[in-house]
């Protein structure tokens, strides 16, 4: 008799990912031979298993999406643990918190029926959060985007991403395009004042995509494209570090020990990795200054090789396609826009940072979703995926209701 459960693609994928994580962490544990290394061998696959298998038992969810997200998060923990064990452990804790936040977001989307009362509060809170770095912020890497409150450092723009999606989805579903544009414009203004141009680019792109999806108007799309071009020219002329970024994008070797040092080291690390990589634990990419945040993809290419790097990109592509499928299956306008915005945001952010790493586009200081080090980034990315999962969950419910109705009619 054929065992259909064992051959289900879900079980095969989950078991393969767990095997990957187990063997990779075991290899690192054998290198250091420390108790925490062996703890990670058990802990990370366990978090992956719990987050992938048990969440769909609480409420209907898209298990494939969960599986891919959790794999990327666990890969991030692995890479960070390899480069800096302390950061790896921090990231594992953030991963656990992020999974909890994701569950809350799923519940939020599932059970909130009336969005209107909270939109105004959410918008005001978001603008207040975005203004915090201008008042109490700390400047890092040319951008004043960080705030430390009660000893806890975080990036408000990362958290506001979640609110941006909810607010834009609601306003655009109500055809309040002016309000949606105004909110996004205010956020962009605050981001420009913080000089956080990478995040501003993502906010702008996501808003433009959502407006186009809501209105299907090529006029808005064209105006948005013109606005983006104008903003690019304006940013280039206003900020000196933008000029430097463009210059090192065109020719990173002109100042390879100064402004172009990061990108040059990143390119060297990727080339050193070759097709198969240098081997986990044998990489030499410590020379890259921001190797755990902006250049984590270079670390992956350095240690796992080009082929594995392509697989990571393919996993992001699958994640994007799956998210779009969730958006298209949704029967409600607000949920469709929410899912579309979430998928666009993750895809755009991934493109911007991987493109910057491989010198396809000028480098901007954003994180690689789910993998880069950073609590704010990981938690906000998982929250965004929580919103997406919430929509997927509602879709599953609707299909079940339809099937139940069809069965009831069959009985009748």
């Amino acid at each position: 008799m054929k065992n259909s459960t064992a051959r289900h693609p879900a079980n095969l994928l989950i078991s393969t990912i767990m095997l990957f994580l187990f063997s990779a962490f075991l290899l690192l544990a054998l290198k250091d031979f420390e108790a925490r290394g062996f703890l990670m061998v058990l802990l990370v696959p366990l978090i992956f298993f719990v987050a992938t298998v048990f969440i769909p038992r609480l409420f209907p969810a898209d298990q494939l999406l969960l599986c891919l997200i959790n794999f990327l998060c666990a890969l991030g923990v692995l890479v960070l643990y390899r480069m800096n064990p302390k950061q790896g452990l921090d990231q594992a804790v953030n991963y656990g918190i992020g999974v909890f936040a994701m569950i809350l977001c799923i519940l939020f989307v599932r059970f909130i029926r009336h969005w209107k009362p909270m939109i105004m509060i959410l918008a005001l809170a978001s603008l207040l959060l975005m203004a915090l770095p201008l008042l109490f912020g700390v400047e890092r890497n040319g951008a004043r985007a960080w705030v430390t409150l009660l000893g806890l450092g975080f990036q408000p723009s990362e958290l506001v991403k979640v609110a941006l999606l909810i607010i834009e989805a609601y306003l655009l579903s109500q055809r309040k395009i002016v309000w949606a544009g105004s909110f996004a414009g205010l956020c962009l203004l605050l981001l420009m004042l913080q000089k956080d141009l990478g995040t501003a680019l993502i906010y702008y792109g996501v808003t433009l995509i959502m407006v186009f999806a809501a209105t299907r108007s090529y006029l808005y799309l064209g105006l948005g494209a013109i606005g983006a071009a104008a903003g690019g020219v304006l940013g280039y002329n206003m900020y000196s570090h933008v000029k430097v970024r463009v210059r090192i994008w065109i020719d990173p070797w002109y100042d390879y020990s100064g402004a172009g040092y990061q990108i040059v080291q990143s390119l060297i690390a990727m080339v050193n990795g070759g097709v198969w990589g240098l081997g986990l634990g044998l990489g030499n990419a410590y020379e890259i200054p921001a190797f755990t945040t902006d250049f984590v993809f270079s670390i992956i290419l350095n240690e796992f090789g080009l082929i594995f790097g392509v697989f990571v990109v393919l996993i992001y592509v699958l994640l994007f396609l799956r998210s779009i499928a969730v958006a298209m299956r949704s029967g409600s306008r607000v949920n469709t826009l929410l899912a579309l915005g979430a998928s666009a945001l993750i895809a755009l952010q991934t493109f911007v940072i991987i493109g910057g790493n491989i010198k396809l586009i000028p480098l901007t200081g954003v994180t690689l979703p789910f993998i880069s080090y950073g609590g704010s980034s990981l938690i906000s990315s998982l929250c965004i995926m929580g919103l997406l999962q919430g929509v997927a969950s509602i879709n599953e419910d609707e299909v079940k209701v339809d099937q139940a109705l069809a069965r009831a009619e069959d009985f009748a």
Partner: protein
Amino acid sequence: MDCCLRMQTAIFYVSIRLQPCFCCIYDIMDLNGNGGSEERLSADAFELVSLGTRYWFVLLGLIIVLRAARWAWHDHRSYLHTLRSLPDAGYIGEIVNLDTGVTQALPREGVMGSGKACDIRFKGLRRRELLYELREGKGILLTPSHENNQILMEDVPLSRHDYALHGTRLSFPGYSLRMRLFEGFDIPKREVTSMQEDAGYLQSSGDFNLEDYASESSYQQMPMIPPAMASRPTQDQVQQAEDPIGQMTWVYASPPADQQPDIPQLWADASNDDVNEAFIPQAPEAERITESHVRRRRSQRHEK
């Protein structure tokens, strides 16, 4: 000569390549006589293992991508299959053109108009004429896109937004439309009887049970909504209330006898009991609807 040279080169190459391996074996077996003081792998051994696992990780990466893609494809196909077996999925009803009898499926929310992007399209209307959205417990919220419109709901001009229900008639310039819903039956009781009689007619015909769609508690908690038609029933509604079947012009009329398709009456023949049993749905196993059970639209099945 060449052969010897090649062989020597090969042996040299292999020995160089295998050197870490020998070192590893020496380390593991403690043949170097270091006393095994350190439990961790030596750097050479780790290097060897790490170099070997590169291919293992790439292989696992490939399997992960392929399995994820296969799963996505598998799920996409099963979703399409589900959609085929549930043609009403995602729709809340349909809108009938009373002049032509042509129907268009009604999504949960959308836009009516003549534009390409509209969910319900009628030529001759404005590009975006009317926005609609199903509000649970209230009905379909209709919001005209333009203030100076010529939309009539039950012969009353629709100046701002209002709620439509099952059977509500809409008039656009050149079009007379009727809404037929199969969702939203948890709408409050209304004074106008035509809706309830429609529902009663359908209920008595065994097509559906109103109580299945609306629980008692939610039914009682629903606020009373005074829609435009509730206050003063139109002539059409009065006629419909008196003779619901005869006046339901928006229901599909059954075709003349000579045009009706020849449907085999399997159930009339006792020899087909096996076939008939196969089509009786079994409650636990009915999760999966097979290809042969491709369904007709729910609203069309009501007409049988």
